[in-house]
């Protein structure tokens, strides 16, 4: 007699299977349409393509149901559908890029499965707080190593290792979110206490501002040394969101926003291409800037406006005219050929991922899991907003990829790993014990027998929200 939880897990697996089949069908349809639309001929070898894609998607599905029993069934179908749409748009723009993207998609799916295999319990990650943090920062700074980094479009984002190039900021983002979740979970009480107040505002301890200043410093380094506006903004935004979620101290938000404003003004004054971005943001379509500073943003808007409500249809528009059409501006390419209908559906799909991610956070009772899921969901949501808002001139453009959709191996792989973590956190871990929490965390490989050792609920396990007490009636 199956337990309630088992039945629920089985129902979820069924839902996910149906949705995943739908995602595979959507990908196949998009592929057929895009080939027909660009070449005017029915594609050959559809069956092979469909078989490989379906196998990849189903592997992700099976990994979820087998390795993360009872996980939220929305993640895999939504992400693979986005990846499928992204593949079709990239194929439409450049067949050679599409071959790479296809390989990256399969590698991403493989790494999704691998992540679920390796990380059977997300709390394992909580052991390596500082290792992960240091690796994350180190990865982030890799492009600055002479001979390794490469500057593309004025932004030092890439590293080269022989024939391989990689954008380390992508994976660093996930590592830093894991670090922050672990770190903030441990220090949130400390960070939330306040002893001093100025009028109605209670200030955190000066030393509690340390992490905030460190994060700000990292963001500044990314901004000024690597010229990577998008990652800098994203990193600081994620940090603030997680810090606030962990501590509930609005003062951090206030101080954070002041620091952000200061950095922005400095960047505007000191970094020429930040000035270009601001001009493009404000005046992209004016005759004076449309052919120079505003060019890329204007081209993106032209594409989207030409697409209108229904879009031109895959292969019928001219998204190739947009600079970075397959990477940062893939949303504009999509807008031209799939119209408002396509852009809205895609945005709603991200909303589903963010919503389900936050629900996974709500469903956890361990602070680390909560913060990790919150951080990962915020990463997806904020990154989507930063690029879509940038393309639509809601905010100045800062180049980041559109998760799962943009062309690029680093981005695709990282997002599938991120997805695997969300899937992992969303799955109930019935009797799975948390690793020894509290101050006894060891930095290093988990000692054998952790499971047995931790099967007793540790006394120091932060019970729901002790921090709230310190907050009082805030």
């Amino acid at each position, binding site marked *: 007699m199956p337990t309630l939880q088992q039945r629920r897990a089985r129902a979820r697996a069924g839902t996910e299977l149906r949705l995943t089949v739908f995602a595979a069908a959507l990908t196949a349809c998009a592929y057929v349409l895009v080939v027909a639309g660009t070449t005017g001929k029915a594609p050959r070898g559809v069956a092979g393509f469909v078989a490989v894609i379906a196998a990849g998607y189903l592997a992700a599905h099976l990994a979820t149901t087998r390795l993360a029993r009872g996980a939220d069934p929305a993640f895999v179908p939504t992400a693979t559908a986005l990846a499928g749409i992204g593949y079709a748009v990239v194929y439409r723009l450049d067949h050679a890029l599409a071959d790479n993207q296809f390989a990256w998609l399969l590698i991403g799916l493989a790494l999704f499965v691998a992540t679920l295999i390796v990380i059977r319990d997300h709390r394992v990650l909580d052991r390596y707080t500082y290792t992960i943090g240091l690796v994350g920062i180190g990865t982030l700074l890799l492009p600055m190593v002479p001979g390794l980094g490469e500057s593309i479009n004025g932004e030092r984002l890439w590293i080269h290792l022989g024939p391989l190039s990689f954008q380390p900021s992508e994976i660093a983002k996930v590592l830093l979110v894991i670090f922050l979740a672990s770190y903030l979970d441990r220090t949130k009480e400390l960070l939330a206490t306040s002893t001093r107040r100025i009028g109605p505002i209670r200030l955190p301890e000066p030393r509690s501002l340390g992490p905030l200043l460190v994060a700000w410093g990292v963001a500044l380094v990314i901004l000024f040394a690597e010229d990577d506006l998008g990652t800098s903004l994203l990193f600081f935004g994620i940090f603030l969101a997680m810090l606030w*979620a962990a501590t509930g101290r609005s003062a951090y938000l206030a101080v954070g926003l002041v620091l952000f404003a200061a950095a922005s003004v400095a960047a505007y004054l000191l970094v020429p291409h930040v000035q270009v971005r601001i001009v493009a943001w404000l005046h992209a379509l004016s005759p004076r800037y449309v052919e120079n500073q505003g060019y890329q943003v*204007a081209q993106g*808007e032209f594409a*989207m*406006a*030409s697409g209108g409500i229904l879009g031109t249809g895959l292969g019928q528009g*001219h998204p190739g005219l947009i600079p970075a059409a397959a990477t940062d501006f893939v949303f504009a390419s999509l807008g031209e050929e799939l119209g408002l209908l396509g852009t809205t559906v895609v*945005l709603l799909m991200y909303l589903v991922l963010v919503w389900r991610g*936050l629900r996974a956070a709500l469903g956890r009772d361990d602070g680390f899991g909560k913060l990790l899921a919150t951080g990962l969901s915020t990463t997806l949501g904020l990154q989507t907003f930063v690029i879509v808002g940038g393309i639509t001139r809601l905010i100045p453009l800062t180049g980041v990829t559109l998760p799962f959709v943009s062309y690029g191996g680093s981005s695709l792989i990282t997002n599938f790993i991120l997805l695997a973590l969300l899937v992992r956190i969303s799955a109930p871990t019935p009797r799975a014990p948390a690793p020894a929490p509290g101050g006894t965390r060891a930095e290093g490989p988990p000692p054998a027998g952790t499971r047995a050792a931790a099967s007793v609920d540790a006394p120091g396990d932060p019970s729901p929200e002790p921090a709230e007490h310190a907050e009082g009636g805030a």
Partner: protein
Amino acid sequence: MMDRRIRILGLGLLLLFLAALLSVNYIQVFAAGRIASNPANPRLVLQLYDTRRGAILAADEQTVLAESVPTGGLYRYRRVYPGGAVYAPVTGYASLIYGQAGLEASMNGYLSGNAPELATQSLVNELLGRPKSGGTVITTIVPRLQVAAARALGSLQGAVVAMDPRTGDVLAMVSNPSYDPAALATTDTAAETRAWKHLTTGKEQPLLSRANQLLYPPGSTFKLVTASAAFQDGMTPATRFPNPHVLQLPNTTHQLHNFGDEWCFNGAPTITLLQAFQISCNVVFGELGLKLGAARLAQQAEAFGFNGRIPFDVPAVAGRIPGPGYFATRLPLVAISAIGQDNVLANPLQMAMVASAIADRGVEMAPRLVSEVRDPSGRIVKTFPPRIFARPISSRTASDMTQLMISVVQGGTGVAAQIPGVQVAGKTGTAQNGTGKPHAWFVAFAPAAHPTIVVAAMVLYGGSMGSDATGGAISAPIAKAVIEAWLGK
């Protein structure tokens, strides 16, 4: 209470997404038209290449005068003109920089698919995601005549118009110098700009068709008009006129001379109108002009379409004759105008129309270049039936005029247009233009009894013969070649 903050964070992200959705809606819906029509949007140009512009076909519905072929590149279709310069006076050009001309301009609505008659088809295409396609324009041009006319004209400056007098169908329309419209339908802006500069600067002006867009003195071919007026006024081919060596013009010491300062018919005291017409006797036609008067002469010319608007599928300039006010103080010029000189101007299209009225028993058909338009699936969406333009002369006058014109080819100035077994009616013209090298004209129709073709051939500035050129020597053989091609001789 972290849960509460996670929920608030979720709400915050939701608000960001709503802002993004609003922004996307603004760009793709509310401001889409304004943004997309920004002149810096390269799609505005590319969209013109996106349309599979309709083809322009000859009357046989096979020969392609202009069509759009897929390129497989960024510019989806390329306009090609298989007939090149030979058909340029008909097709015109379709340039993205310089606009359109000729049928490409006048039929643009059909060719581009924007005409209301093609709206349904366009909508269907759009829904099916097919590229927009234009309608096919079927012309009245007969390729073998067009080619024959172009070959007969060779490299000489001038123009030839051939019409079917029964319908007004323009069977051939050739002009020299011409141009290859493909030079203005490239995707290479720099090359196209160069081509345009080359075509529009300098004296040749090949973009202007000599057949219908420019005007030249018609010389003695205008005697078709003068004689028509005489017959309309009750004179007959047998009406006699005094035949002096020169005509002493009124109120002046100037005299009107015959061609080569010769005597007409060896100085017979009087000759008939038919005789005068047959050998193109200027003195007699000067007398006739003065007798008819300026008002009557202009009235008859205007009845044929002079000074008016010629309804045509491509821009056409009607012939011109000054009004009575002009002649009030210049009485001698009436005589000069009666022989198609001074300020009387025409072009081959106008003169072909005059001859077609004679050939069609007094009914002058409007010239027609397009017979119908089909949608991309071949359905006829628009027909242009033949229309009567005017009835400038009676059928009686027409038959008298035919008699005169037959005599010209049988034993007058136009013997070079004789075709064994076919009775050809014609009129020569050798028009002075101040350069000493006359324009040579020949206007003819055949078979004289039941005409099926009218040809007006004009060679400018003496062609290959310089000052010795005459309509009979240079242009009559050209008209003959076209008539032979038509009648299969």
